[in-house]
């Protein structure tokens, strides 16, 4: 079966005043229909750039290489008009900042109707009815009234619901959600994640969830991709990854979330920060921060290698089980 979304060796570089920087370097993954994949990593790892590259929404100074296939179609090679039909139609995206992602000059209803009318033949009144139905479906109270409301009248959580309604209204097969709950407070976060899970189960829409929060990952994802400094460092199913993380970076990330499994080797939160794409370290990019670092790490780029069934990690020291035993 061809996967719904297949990304192969995606690399994104930006032309900047200080030369070309490669923010994303060889990212590959595939997503089956109805599945939910989380992309995790600290700030600056290239998560948003990866998502925007898939949507072809990168800034003009960006260049994307590799391949992105959506339902078999080459996205990076698609014509501009074909791309517009895919965007919002087959693949939709919601963003981190619900406060600024809606246009303040138009009512929320108009903004949803606009998306529906762009991708379907719905008449204005049909589109309006559909938009109201979607507002109800994302649990916005009094949807008929909210339809005519301007975004500034809604709370952050309500606006994110509107964004979800707008994204889902054309029944895309993939929804990319870039930190959809980061700007919201905890109770609203849980509601939005619950809503996204429910909608994906009901409609069969696959989700790519971008987050730096493993708690959010656990709420929603089937599979997890861990990114560090523009590369994929580990990928596994949710269960496997939480039970037996095999990359020191993943293990470090887990130090910051509530323990889910007692067998996980416990590390202190990771010291230091993600290096800038202007100065990626040679060899393993995590080496400057890694407690397991050995000489080889600084010269050799560790390839993504199978460490278990459906589980890959890019670390010369993997599998890490022997350290866990020693601890």
């Amino acid at each position, binding site marked *: 079966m061809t996967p719904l979304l297949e990304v192969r060796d995606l690399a994104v570089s930006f032309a900047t005043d200080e030369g070309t920087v490669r923010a994303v370097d060889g990212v590959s993954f595939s997503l089956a229909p109805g599945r939910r994949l989380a992309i995790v990593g600290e700030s600056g790892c290239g998560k948003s750039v990866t998502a925007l590259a898939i949507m072809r929404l990168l800034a003009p100074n960006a260049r994307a290489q590799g391949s992105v296939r959506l339902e078999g179609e080459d996205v990076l090679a698609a014509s501009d008009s074909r791309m517009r039909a895919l965007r919002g139609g087959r693949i939709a995206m919601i*963003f981190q900042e619900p406060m600024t992602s809606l*246009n303040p000059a138009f009512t929320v209803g108009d903004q949803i109707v*606009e998306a529906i009318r762009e991708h379907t033949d719905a008449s204005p009144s049909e589109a309006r009815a559909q938009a109201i139905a979607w507002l109800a479906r994302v649990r916005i109270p009094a949807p008929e009234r909210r339809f005519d409301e*301007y975004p500034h009248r809604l709370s952050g959580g309500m606006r994110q619901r509107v964004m979800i309604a707008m994204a889902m209204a054309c029944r895309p097969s993939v929804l990319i959600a870039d930190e959809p709950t980061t700007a919201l407070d905890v109770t609203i976060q849980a509601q939005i994640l619950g809503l996204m899970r429910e909608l994906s189960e009901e409609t069969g829409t696959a989700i790519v969830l971008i987050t730096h929060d493993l708690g959010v990952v656990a709420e929603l994802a089937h599979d997890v991709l861990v990114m560090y400094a523009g590369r994929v460092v580990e990928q596994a199913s949710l269960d496997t990854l939480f039970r037996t993380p095999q990359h020191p970076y993943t293990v470090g990330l887990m130090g910051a979330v509530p323990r889910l499994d007692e067998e996980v080797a416990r590390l202190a939160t990771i010291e230091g920060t993600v290096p800038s794409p202007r100065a990626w370290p040679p060899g393993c990019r995590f080496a400057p921060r890694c407690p397991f670092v050995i000489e080889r790490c600084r010269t050799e780029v560790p390839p993504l290698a199978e460490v278990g069934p459906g589980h890959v990690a890019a670390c010369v020291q993997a599998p890490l089980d022997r350290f866990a035993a020693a601890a």
Partner: protein
Amino acid sequence: MAGFLVRRVGQIIPTLLFVSLLIFGLQQLMPGDPALILAGEERGDPLVLAQIRAELNLDRPLHEQYVLWLFKVLQGDLGFSWRIREPVAKVILEKLPVTLQLGLMAFVIACLIGIPAGIVSAVKKDQPADWIANGVALAGISTPNFWLGIMMILLFSVHLGWLPPSGYVALTVDWRQSLATTIMPAFVLGTGIAAVLMRHTRSAMVQAMNQDYVRTARAKGLAERIVVAKHALRNALVPVITLGALELGTLLSGAVLTEQVFTIPGFGKLVVDAVFNRDYPVVQGVVLVVAVIYVLLNLAADVLYILINPRLRHA
């Protein structure tokens, strides 16, 4: 919205009162005794002088004079021109349509050039189209109007003979001739303002194009043309409109040099003639009318600003 309007109209009353005080004050500082000037040949006759003083209330205390003057102004009596020997209100009413026509034409030209140019240069930021638009705008701002006016007369009237070099025909008399006589001065005035509008539109559009909602609009699959013309422009126009109203105010206060170059009998020319002939009542009348136009345009700008900005409309 209605509440805002009432409040805003309430606010302009003190402003207008202040303007009237200022103008009345200046009137007191003007050199020369108006009674002497109005008496003309009979200035030696104390009886005539006393009579004129009584007519003009010049024998009353200042605050009474102010109140009486204000009441007259409110009734449309702006005094009497010393030179033209006609009521100032009548003189101004004759010139107002000329200046209105010229100002509005210039404003339309400014918007038609300035706003699209600003949009293009924002969308093509740091590309040749942007550099060209900025270069032309800079040239437009730094070219003196009178010079551009003279050059246009030389080209279109003297060399090509397409347009009359000067004079004015009223719209009501012959609209074709009227447009022919005003198009050059309107263009001269309009281009200067177009440059200002272009720079403002450009910076507002550059800012709008970087907003998250523009990315959302693109993520919906909208054509770039709609993203620019609908999502970005709608927000960028808010500050541009306010500026536009103020520029229109400047236009309506009379374009002294341009009217002079094209011998257009509008406010600009009226003021110049009045100043040179020390015809103070006319100067005051024009200043008063211009001040009122300014205040009203400001009000219009505020109302428009609210109408176009939903965040304020419901506040």
